[in-house]
């Protein structure tokens, strides 16, 4: 198994990608459960169904690259390599959390991995990503900026302004649009006159491509090409990853806007199911391998929950800290 110009799918890589997606899935399922138990509060937007996107993209990035994501960013954070422990502590709002508990599910931040959030304003992260890329360019660093957002964000003015700016200045930004067909309850065709995001992106002179977002190898292949071009000094690239969210928009969603059959049909094409089937068929992994990975992921999530549970609350006296930087002025 291997695509043109793409990293070969050897056993190690197959296991790694599967492991990546399984970890996200397990984490998300546990979050849903913890939400039911009221351990996690506020808004919670799960990534089930979209695991191939974060996993495929992150495989191609280096530590020098910067990530900007949305409120549906657990998967990106996990794939980027932020430990589940501190992520889960953040879900709980504990001071051991990646954002010291202040952010919660929608606002995961991690300086060590250049993970710039966690933005709960739709399209609000796009300009920031442009700026991170600009910084790399001006400082003559090789890093690129990768910005994840939903297809709903493409209706916002900031999408337009950011794509234009990135294209005009020829900046190393990878825009990853996760087109899961719905923005809350609004189907893409009901909110945007042109539903082909890649086509639209091209009118800004960006390189743009639509990818099967359910296929982790396809996502990785497209990303690898994009990253190579960006590092070689090419202009911004947009990948439209066609995907689907299996769960509700957030935990407050009765899903009146879509049919159960539609969800079921997409589940059939799910990134985990399809990839597992494929690598098993290719003889790269066995059912035992799968079970082991699943068990490992579960154990990791268990440990993360233990970590979170045993974490501490930020003292109330520290409420006002970090409103301004503590590093002198």
């Amino acid at each position: 198994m291997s695509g043109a110009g793409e990293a070969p799918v050897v056993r190690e890589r197959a296991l790694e990608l599967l492991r990546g997606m399984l970890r996200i899935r397990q984490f998300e399922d546990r979050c849903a459960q913890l939400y039911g138990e009221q351990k996690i509060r506020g808004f919670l937007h799960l990534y089930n169904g979209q695991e191939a996107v974060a996993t495929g993209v992150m495989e191609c990035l280096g530590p020098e690259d910067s990530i900007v994501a949305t409120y549906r960013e657990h998967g990106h954070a996990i794939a980027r390599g932020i430990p589940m422990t501190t992520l889960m502590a953040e879900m709980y709002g504990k001071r051991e959390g990646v954002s010291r508990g202040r952010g919660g599910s929608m606002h995961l931040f991690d300086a060590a991995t250049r993970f710039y959030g966690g933005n709960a304003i739709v399209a609000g992260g796009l300009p920031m990503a442009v700026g991170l890329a600009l910084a790399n360019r001006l400082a003559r660093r090789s890093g690129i900026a990768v910005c994840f957002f939903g297809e709903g964000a493409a209706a916002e003015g900031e999408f337009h302004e950011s794509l234009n700016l990135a294209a005009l200045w020829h900046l190393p930004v990878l825009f990853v649009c996760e087109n899961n067909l719905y923005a809350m309850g609004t189907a893409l065709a009901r909110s945007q006159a042109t539903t082909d995001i890649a086509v639209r992106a091209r009118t800004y002179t960006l390189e743009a491509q639509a990818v099967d977002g359910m296929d982790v190898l396809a996502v990785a292949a497209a990303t690898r090409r994009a990253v190579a071009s960006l590092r070689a000094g090419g202009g911004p690239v947009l990948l439209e990853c066609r995907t689907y969210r299996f769960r509700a928009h957030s935990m407050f969603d009765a899903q009146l806007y879509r049919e159960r059959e539609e969800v079921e049909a997409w589940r059939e094409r799910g990134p985990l199911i399809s990839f597992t089937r494929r690598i098993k068929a290719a003889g790269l992994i066995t059912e035992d391998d799968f079970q082991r990975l699943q068990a490992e992921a579960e154990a990791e999530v268990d440990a993360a929950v233990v970590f979170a549970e045993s974490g501490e609350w930020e003292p109330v006296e520290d409420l006002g800290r970090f409103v301004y930087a503590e590093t002198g002025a």
Partner: protein
Amino acid sequence: MSEARTTTTYREALREALRAALRADERVFLMGEDVGRYGGSFAVSKGLLAEFGEERVRDTPLSESAFVGAGIGAALGGLRPIVEIMTCNFSLLALDQILNNAATLCHMSGGQFPVPLVIRMSTGAGRQLAAQHSHSFEGWYAHIPGLRILAPATLADARGMLGSALHCPDPVLIFEHIALLTLEGELAAEAGDVDIRHAAVRRTGRDITVVTYGASLHKCLEAASELGREGIELEVIDLRTLRPLDDETIMGSVRRTHRLLVVDEGWRSGSLAAEVGMRAVEQAFFELDAPIARVCTEEVPVPYPRHLEDAALPSVARIAAEARRLVSRVP
């Protein structure tokens, strides 16, 4: 004359107001993100699409500036749009339209173009939605001439303010507090338009005037009950309309109690509380027996964890403590 009453919630009252408005006037329509198929992000407009159809209950793209501006245009074109901005947190994206167009056109055109637009948005914190989803901007918006700002705190106002706003030729912003959606109580079956020019005294008392609005009203009333048991009588005023302010009701009360506490959910510096306090200084300084006090939100982006969020927001305990402090100060 005894009135028929029904049990309802703030959410249902809001929905009933929308339904009544859509029924009463063909020119009225509702637009905003997810108001239709999804039923409204807080289920306020649930069922309205089925009842009124897509022309009058319009789902919009994620384009706050465009659909608020389109609301302005539609109002100029003779309709009576109700634009829903899902939450006030996203209204910043439409602020240019609100301030530079909706609030300004009537004056700038020498009176030719009033903008009879109603914008509804949810506001407030208290549900652990963290920094970007917990803003209370209504007091901040009250800075803008040309706007009318309403903040329903009761079922009657949730039911009545929309109709009154639609009868007003000016742009009206209605801030619906997310923490009140599940508030339950009785409402007259005939409930409808309400006076949107006056504040309401929700509890009378001789010792301290407490001025507030929105979800904080209920905290103030709770504090008032608590202090009542200690023999301290709070007079609680619900501003209801944050712009223009009803100075008369406020000052009338201050002249009786000689003490003023202002409670609001905005950040403290530059809060509406500062404005209310300053007006009392300007209009009733020599009546005051103690410094004016305020309880507002701490000056931090509201954090996610419950204990920190609670610490950031006005609480019954903080309100009661301030009230006690106020009466303990002698002139």
